[in-house]
């Protein structure tokens, strides 16, 4: 599978923060709709580079990535097959996958 690389700092913001669109222009919801969902609709594997920002608050991460399951109908399995994170801080991908798993567990069983 070919790769599509996204760098959050250069393609979205060095200062990602906030949960909803109403919180600010670089919130988790905006990142999800503007950057993540279009990338995930492409056929390639998506490499998400997390380094280079000033940091990530839990509200941003949960809405951006947990929201893929809650609001955009991706499953945890879909996302794990599609996304690879690159980060100097190994706890960050772990935290994100935790939000995805939490969002999945809140979904009604099919």
């Amino acid at each position, binding site marked *: 599978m070919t790769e599509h690389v996204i760098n959050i700092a250069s393609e979205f*913001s060095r200062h*990602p923060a906030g949960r909803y669109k109403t919180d600010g222009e670089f919130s988790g919801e905006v990142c999800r709709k503007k950057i993540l969902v279009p990338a995930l609709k492409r056929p390639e594997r998506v490499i998400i580079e997390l380094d280079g920002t*000033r*940091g990530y608050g839990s509200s941003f991460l949960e809405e951006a990535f947990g929201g893929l399951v809650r609001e955009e109908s991706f499953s945890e399995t879909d996302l794990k097959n599609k996304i690879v994170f690159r980060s100097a801080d190994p706890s960050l991908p772990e935290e994100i996958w935790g939000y995805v798993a939490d969002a999945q567990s809140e979904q009604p069983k099919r």
Partner: protein
Amino acid sequence: MVPCGTLLFLAEIDRIKRSGVASQRSFSCNYPKARIVEEVLQQVGILDVLGRPSRLAENEFGETVRHWRFATSTTVEGSKLEPLLESLEGKVAAPLTEGLFVGLTEAMTNCAHHAYTDSRGDKLGHAGDLKRWWMFSQEKDGMLAVVFCDLGIGIPRSIVSSGIWNDDLIGRVMTLLGFDARTDSRLIRTALELRKTRTKLSHRGKGLPQILDVVRDQERGFLQIHSNRGLYRFDAPTKAEILKDFNCSIRGTLIQWQLPIPSGRQLGLDLGDNL
């Protein structure tokens, strides 16, 4: 002048002025006798908000005064922290600047979501421009103080009224913490604990503990959260927690971080969106 009290003073005046209930002449002051006090009042915008024109040249301000900086907004704006974070690079470990960014932007997010959900009780309402946060930073004696405040309903009220946690869960967490009667300081401490827990809607309410993470591993400094009548303080060197309750409420939330800075270079916050 201490940063937390000065910020609260400025925020209250700013809120009243923005509400439109006060006429232009409702607030006034004389110039202070001490030059350094005037420099500070000018630097942080208090003279302006009190209707006195700035008359001192900013490039002649004392070293300590130049380190007072002010920012305010109604949205979550991480870019407003960039001048501060940039000035810290090379002086403090990267996790500290990251922690400050995360702690402050989570405080802004908490303000946007929880602070202005009900009346504050000052009859001013919460029209769009009043759902605001204010922030100061100051460097003094090798310590960085960052103070953040909102004038909303306060943490003790918001954890009860937000609907994220039911009353039974709040009661059980308070019991686990060894608290019997509910006071504001105990509710602040409970909020820090509740936000770590899973709820029916686990995607809500994870931000507040990250405010504490900024100082948790520091050898010096503290975090202080004053909300309504209660005060919670985490002392970094001893890891001790102090809870205190006052007779009067500040009707809002004031969060203060104090952290060691190895050298005395200039630190600052964006002065955009000035008063």
